[in-house]
């Protein structure tokens, strides 16, 4: 039930790779469906779409999937403000620093890129940050506390007839 999705994860002919510089691991978006990354680090990335490098209105976004009823939450987007792009490939190095509170949580991150020519790329990957959140221990303590409360409340009490 909690397993990452199986099989290839980018459809539509797009390509993307990222190398996590601290661990030295390289992830290919087409074949990767799970990535466990350090909480703080740098990633050297490159991505491309299978269209000519002409000025066009490509639209896309990256979202994180949360449990029902929250659903998808947007992490980033491009082209939704009407801004056009003229490139079909990009690369760079990105520094990230995630808060310790979200360590250990497995999040499904998915995205899409819609080109005016009809090319539609979609991709998904489960990302987990190394370590354990301090919230996990607080949650465990609260679980034990609420279990004790529950065991007390289900005890019988005398009711006058």
């Amino acid at each position, binding site marked *: 039930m909690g397993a990452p999705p199986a099989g290839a994860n980018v459809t539509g002919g797009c390509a993307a790779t990222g190398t996590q510089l601290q661990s030295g691991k390289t992830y290919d978006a087409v074949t990767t469906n799970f990535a466990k990354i350090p909480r703080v680090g740098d990633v050297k990335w490159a991505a491309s779409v299978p269209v000519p490098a002409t000025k066009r209105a490509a639209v896309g976004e990256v979202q994180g999937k949360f449990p029902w009823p929250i659903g998808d939450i947007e992490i980033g987007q491009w082209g939704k403000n009407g801004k056009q792009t003229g490139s079909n490939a990009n690369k760079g190095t990105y520094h990230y620093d995630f808060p310790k509170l979200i360590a250990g949580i497995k999040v499904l991150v998915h995205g899409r890129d819609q080109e005016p020519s009809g090319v539609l790329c979609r991709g998904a990957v489960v990302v987990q940050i190394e370590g354990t959140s301090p919230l996990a221990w607080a949650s465990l303590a609260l679980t034990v506390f609420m279990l004790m409360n529950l065991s007390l409340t289900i005890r019988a*009490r*005398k009711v006058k007839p």
Partner: protein
Amino acid sequence: MKYRGRIGLAAFCGFFVGLFVGFDLVLFGAIQLDNITVSVLPIIGLFGGAALAMWAPLGRKRTDSTTP
């Protein structure tokens, strides 16, 4: 003398037991954040807690339960 569980309180506690068990599973990486279990566990806890209080109140004296 009749005995009865605290149904409302047990449902309240059951809800939070389910909620925090869901949080535990997510925070320790046992299930994905978008797993439906996270949403379902508090509801199971709510009804489970109430059911426990209704049908299995602990500490009930068996002799009293048969008193007319």
